[in-house]
């Protein structure tokens, strides 16, 4: 669906890295929590171009952001379904966030996963407000 290949594991970007796009959404359910997706700008554009069937050169910033939001929604939903397929979660609308001092902050650091896409890094991080599912979060990615 997203024609994206994870080439290798990568290090999460440095906190406050400006050359990228970060999407955040909250989920309510048991347990509730927070999901963040970070994309290098070039990776965001390449993914959006594939998704929409457009030329990366002609994409607007809004198109890249819309696709990044959809990608975050999709990854979060897939992860939560794997963690607790019998539970029920409600996802908030994904939002583009800026100015995060600790984008992969202390609570999410242990559950962040980064991959190299060939056009830059993709990082997904999940943080749950209870400890119940901590052990399964990483494997769900």
């Amino acid at each position, binding site marked *: *669906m997203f024609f994206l290949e994870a080439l290798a594991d990568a290090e999460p970007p440095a906190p406050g890295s400006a050359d990228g796009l970060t999407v955040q959404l909250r989920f309510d359910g048991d347990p509730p929590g927070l999901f963040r997706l970070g994309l290098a700008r070039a990776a965001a554009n390449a993914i959006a171009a594939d998704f*929409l069937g457009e030329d990366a050169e002609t994409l607007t910033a809004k198109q890249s952001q*819309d696709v990044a939001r*959809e990608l975050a929604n999709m990854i*979060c*939903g897939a992860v939560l379904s794997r963690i607790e397929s*019998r539970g*029920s979660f409600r996802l908030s*609308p994904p939002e583009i966030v800026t100015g995060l001092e600790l984008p992969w902050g202390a609570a999410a650091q242990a559950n962040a996963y980064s991959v190299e896409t060939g056009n830059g890094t993709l990082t997904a991080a999940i943080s749950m407000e209870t400890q119940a599912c901590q052990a399964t979060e990483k494997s769900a990615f």
Partner: protein
Amino acid sequence: MAYRVLITDDSPAMRTFVRRVIELSGFDLAACFEAGDGAEALDVLREEWVDAILTDINMPNVDGEELLRRLAEDEMLRSIPAIVISTDATESRIARLLALGARGYVTKPFRPETLRAELERTLGVPVE
């Protein structure tokens, strides 16, 4: 036979993508309409006849669950099959939406052939 499909999703990118996937999959598409939420979908359905509705769940105003309820309550519209496209693969949500009247359920991310197969199954398209 070519079919008329309504895509309901608050994400313009997702609507574009679903339309593109339907076209690329080889599904026989006569016309494709788009709506940004359930209320817009009902507006479209007052003007246009469609053979199938593809709908997201989480949308502003009238969400996917409410759209399914309103379709079921409407004598003119209840026969149109609705397929839910959602990231939510939890068993309780799928069961609830099927109970509300959804005829099919496709979990994102999906492959083009999966969406085509679900459309054809729901529409009763003969297998070639």
